[in-house]
């Protein structure tokens, strides 16, 4: 589709957009990278090789990975139920999926912590069984599963809606059982969407702060997450160290996103 130069407003909108983008996004981000450039390699290495920072990297990325995996397994089941079955209250259930997206993270944080604390509704059941969730890494995962829930469901749902029923009918007429059809025909068609949802949920979980900071317990070397390390360093006016951690975190996150895109490309190619 050809875009025309006949419409007015190119100069005006270009001016507004570039100014706004520069003020709000470009200059602040450039400030971050400029700051990390002024810190010597030695100091960056010293900051990042600190045991406490390394542990926070493991906690943040590890918990995000586990939570995104849980969502990658349960999310498609929720999407399947919402697309394929009719049941009373379906629209409400559909709306519930969006709640983690709309609910402020701090609300999620204090609520989940209260629920999973020893005398909370979930804690009362789990603690006698010897399962401690609040103030452990399990609590971090619980919060991140909540936060990541909409991503996988909402990326899989439209793809599932688009799969033509002829495909399934063909598989069935060739003698496939329903389970075989789902496993061999439907699921492979969903893989790229599941992967996209997984990557989005993972990326969101790595940087998540509000919902995690209450339930994590924030024990150095055990349940301290990366965003909290950044905040702690800022509060001690160690701007350089905070910047080094933040830049490293951004780089690793972008690397994961890139990896996701590469895998996505592979899946697509195999399919076609």
């Amino acid at each position, binding site marked *: 589709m050809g875009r*025309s130069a*006949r*419409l*007015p407003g190119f100069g005006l*909108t270009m001016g*507004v*957009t570039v100014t706004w*983008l520069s003020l709000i*996004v470009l*200059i*602040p*981000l450039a*400030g*971050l990278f400029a*700051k990390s450039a002024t810190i010597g390699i030695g100091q960056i290495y010293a900051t990042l090789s600190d045991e406490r920072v390394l542990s926070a990297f493991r906690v943040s990325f590890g918990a995000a990975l586990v939570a995104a995996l849980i969502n990658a397994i*349960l999310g498609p*089941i*929720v999407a399947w*139920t*919402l697309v394929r*079955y*009719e*049941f009373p209250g379906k*629209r409400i*259930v559909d*709306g519930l999926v*969006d709640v*983690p997206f*709309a*609910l*402020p*993270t*701090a*609300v*999620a944080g*204090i*609520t*989940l912590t*209260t*629920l999973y604390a020893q005398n909370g509704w*979930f804690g009362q059941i789990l603690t006698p069984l010897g399962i401690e969730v609040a103030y452990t890494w399990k609590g971090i995962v619980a919060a991140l599963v909540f936060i990541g829930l909409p991503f996988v469901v909402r990326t899989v749902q439209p793809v599932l809606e688009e799969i033509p*029923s002829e495909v*399934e*009918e063909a598989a*069935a007429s060739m003698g496939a059982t*329903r389970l075989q059809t789902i496993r061999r025909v439907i699921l492979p068609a969903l893989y790229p969407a599941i992967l996209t949802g997984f990557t989005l949920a993972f*990326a969101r979980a790595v*940087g998540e*702060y*509000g919902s995690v900071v*209450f339930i994590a317990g924030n024990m150095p070397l055990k349940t301290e997450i990366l*965003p909290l390390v950044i*905040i702690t360093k800022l509060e001690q006016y160690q*701007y350089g160290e*905070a910047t080094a951690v*933040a830049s490293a*975190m*951004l780089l690793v*996150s972008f690397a994961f*996103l890139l990896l996701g895109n590469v895998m996505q490309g592979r899946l697509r190619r195999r399919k076609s």
Partner: protein
Amino acid sequence: MSQLRSKATRDPWWLKATALSITFLFLGLVVVVPIVSVFVNAFAKGFGAYWEAISHPDTLAALKMTLLAAACAVPLNAACGLAAAWLVTKFRFRGRDFLVSLIDVPFSVSPVISGLVFVLLFGAQGWFGPTLQEWGIRIIFTPVSIVLATVFVTFPFVTRELIPMMEEQGVQAEEAATMLGASGWNTFWRVTLPSIKWGLLYGLILSNARAMGEFGAVSVVSGHIRGETNTLPLHAEILYNEYDFTGAFAVASLLTLVAGATVVLKMWLERKVRK
């Protein structure tokens, strides 16, 4: 639709039962129980205590700050988002893809880093900090920084919603209007805006929810000064850390209501757009 589907694509009863139970159990435990518990905790000491927490001057000040941040961020981002969407969808130019991916950046950055970038710019040891200090201007730990951080985190919402919509609509209608002699503004108000109003509203609602609920970015730049730079989410945190659970959940219940309204409006708009 489902009645028309042939027997071959119908799921066996046990599969349906399993999928339904997993969905209900998962959403029930992860979403419904937490929402219910917000209100149970908020009203645990009766309506009197709830009202007292809500009408406390610190809570009202936090409410004001939250409304102010949203009232600045949402319209600003909407106006600039409209300009950006017009630019990106009506014209083809070099660096267009780069511009589009830049708009998305605030989504892929941790909220804490969103706050950090402003501390690095305007903080006491930041790039502009010392200069501003000479002029007697403070930004970090003032309402200005809260507005800035809120604008940053809500930056992409409106544009993101509008770009696919305006892309699909193409340029013919606008071209026809201008050829018939309508001015640029007239074309925008009479032709473009009516056709994107629901998408625009959708973006506004989502960015408002994020603006009112933002925690990490605002937490870094606010300094948590009661009655001055506290937003509702930050106030809930302070009360919670002081073991005032009724107060914390009373504040949380307000935010939960905003979230509920957001979800309902979002679903209503999605149906409208699909039609």
